[in-house]
């Protein structure tokens, strides 16, 4: 069944069932909510950043469809050790690569919610600083 099956292949479902880095940080540098109002998807992204803007720790929580939650989980595995400005430069191709599958236009906003919330967190942190 091709492309669509890939969207729900075992790796993604596994991240959905047991998301990585799920929960709260003890003392996050920044914590931000992201929402897809049209779907009701919700992600809270928490980052620990050092003074240089290096991400030292990350956690997320939320609810929503498998695609939004699995994408966020996959993303959080990649964040530690990255610099804030690297994250800002990422876009949908990066998320597609993480998911290993093209997501069609009707679900792309689900797939991008984790990244967009992280970027919003970084922007908020910058504005504070």
């Amino acid at each position, binding site marked *: 069944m091709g492309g669509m099956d890939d969207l*729900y292949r075992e790796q993604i479902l596994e991240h959905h069932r047991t998301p990585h880095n799920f929960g709260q940080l003890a003392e996050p540098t920044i914590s931000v909510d992201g929402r897809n109002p049209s*779907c*009701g998807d919700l992600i809270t992204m928490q980052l620990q950043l050092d003074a240089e803007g290096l991400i030292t720790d990350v956690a997320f929580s939320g*609810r*929503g*469809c498998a695609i939004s939650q699995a994408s966020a989980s996959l993303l959080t595995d990649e964040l530690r050790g990255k610099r804030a400005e690297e994250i800002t430069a990422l876009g949908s191709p990066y998320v597609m690569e993480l998911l290993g599958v093209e997501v069609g236009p*009707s679900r792309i906003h689900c797939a991008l919610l984790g990244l967009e919330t992280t970027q919003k967190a970084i922007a908020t942190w910058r504005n504070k600083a």
Partner: protein
Amino acid sequence: MSDWHTPGGQLDPLKVRAAYPILSTTPGGRPLHYLDSAATAQRPKAVVDAVSNFLLTANANPHRGAYTLGGDATAAYEGARARTAAFLGVPAEELVMLGSATEALNLVARSWGRANLSRGDVVLVTEAEHHANLIPWQQVTREVDADLEFIPVDDVTGEILWDRLEGLLKLRPKIVAVGHVSNVLGSAAPLAQIAPQIHAAGGLLAVDGCQAVANMPVNIPDTGADFYAFSAHKMGALFSGGGLWARAHLLNEMNPIETGGDMIREVRLRDATFAEGTQKFEAGTPDASGTVALAAACDFIDDLGREQIHAHEVRMLERVLRELPEALPDARILGPRDAKDRIGLVSFSSDLVHAHDLATILDRRGVAIRAGHHCAMPLHEQLELSATARVSVAPYTTDEDLDALFDGLRDARKIFAR
């Protein structure tokens, strides 16, 4: 009627399907099982042909031309208004043709509302309203400092608790605005029962008929409504088009909210007087093609028979309600248990499979359902749901469509349960 019916007089959906060319297409290479008619109905070829025919043989600016073609266009436009009015059982002179139900509901809230509501007045709506019958009331009540109050829903099934109405009428709402049929719950409001209660309490009844007019017989005078709004595209006409019926004296008292050509009597540099009747609310060039499409859709619906459509849809919904729990055991079904109490649709949620994932998985089998809040976020919030899946049926819905639906639901369950 035999074109669309069994010898026994029931709708034969396989015959009806043939009237809708899109149902034989294969979007994404898959046969189409369209179960999203509550979002927009499919268009029968008869409607598309009526539009083409108008545009290619009678197209001109209605109300303006002092020439034969202009007269033809005017006759087509006003004839289509009259046809639609007859379909709904109201006089043509009381049926305002607008761009959509959204426009119609905004007209009620902003024209009638601004003129008649003031500080402390109460507007009553249900917690299940579509945004189009909610936000305009939020806006006008905020502007004039009136109160917006709610007929609550059951926390579990979402059903509107109509028995609370009597108590709420003690607030003496100036207007009660409700959907005729909820586009999430599929339940019909007991209009004939609540209208006299509301009137006795001194209020008006505004009805959002979007989900009713195509799926059941609707004769507006029988509902007791004072305003009744509907959308053309939910009836198989074009996206553009919708109407507002209102009692003549209400129309007379109301001010237009849109001004321009065609709705005036006399215009001077610094002031203008407006036309009378429905014309006052129809600023700009009339949407003749949209209105002709609407009349053709009324003809087609009446050809199928509104009783027959309703009966067919109930049969389809019975099967949905019966088999859904088998296919997806954790499904939480909103609205009435009995298909006979439903009009056109079933919404449900599942903890196992999120509605959006369900829609994507169903799409693999060509099954088109809607996932989301269906423009009723507050209702979803009351139910602590972020999204539901909605299956809606139509005269062209077949058992094959439902077979594909249930196969898809079993796919989803398999994927998420492994």
